[in-house]
């Protein structure tokens, strides 16, 4: 359950961006979460509720945008989705797959009103 710790990071960011907007209410927070992270969307949602309670974020919608795991083969330049976490190139069987997407863990945007 490190989603609570992750959410502390989310709220640090939210606070920073709303520090100069004291009268504003946050209505939406969008997170981007890659497939190869250990953040579970449901646990993020419940942690979000815990942190939002009693703040200007209470009642806001949390959107979690999931990003698939993709990689690039450094040998044959194949690029595509990594299936079942298999980091072996499906085209040339090369072992040098570089992760392109799937490790994201960031706050993309917020909506305030």
């Amino acid at each position, binding site marked *: *359950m*490190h989603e609570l*710790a*992750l959410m502390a*990071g*989310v709220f*640090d*960011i939210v606070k920073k*961006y709303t520090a100069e907007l004291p009268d*504003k209410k946050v209505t939406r927070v969008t*997170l981007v979460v890659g497939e*190869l*992270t*250990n*953040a579970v969307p449901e646990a993020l949602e419940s942690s979000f509720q815990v942190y939002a309670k009693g703040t200007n974020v209470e009642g806001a919608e949390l959107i979690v945008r999931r990003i698939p795991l993709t990689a690039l083969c450094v040998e044959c330049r194949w690029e595509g989705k990594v299936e*079942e*976490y*298999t*980091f*072996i190139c499906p085209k040339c069987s090369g*072992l040098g797959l570089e992760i392109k997407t799937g490790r994201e*863990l*960031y*706050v*993309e*945007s*917020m*909506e*305030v*009103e």
Partner: protein
Amino acid sequence: MEISVNEGILDLNERAASENRKLFDRHGLLVINIMGSPGAGKTTVLEKTIDVLIDSVRLAVIEGDIYTSKDARRIEKHGVPVRQINTGGACHLDARMIRKALDEFDLENIDLLIIENVGNLVCPVEFNLGEDIKVAVLSITEGDDKPLKYPLLFKESAAVILNKIDLLDFTDVDMDSLRRDIRKINPVVDIFEVSARSGEGIDDWVRWIIKKVKEKTE
């Protein structure tokens, strides 16, 4: 009003980790972060490792635990400097906790710092500590399905220790499939099959560490 943010949730920890890393590099100190489930045998592996390493490498240990100092007391008996970090409920160590604990060590006179993370297959791997190397300890009694269930740890680890190999006959674990799954996730990983209880396989693992320490200190 829409506000564009694009800031990493772990940025604060990442910054602290890179400060730690600079400090480690300045002192020519190799740092290993050991992760695995509760009961995988991390502390026992560490005890056996210390007993072999202590004559050739100057090492220190940080023990991560939620509340207790049982593991630190075990390590202390092996004659190396050890510092306990209690996370007070958190399921992982973070870079700032490590930074604080470092003040207790004479970094100039240490070649290797081993950090035993909180027992957990999931959370610790998201929080970089500034370490050079992550190592996963998986006991075969946990089952051969674990790598694919918790791929991130195995992807990020430079070595995997498969512990409790002495119990193989009492399990239904398919070692070939276990090794295959680990290598699928991480084709360049080094795998060590050990029994921390009997000491089997510990020598190969220790030789690997010594090589890594030399690479860093030379």
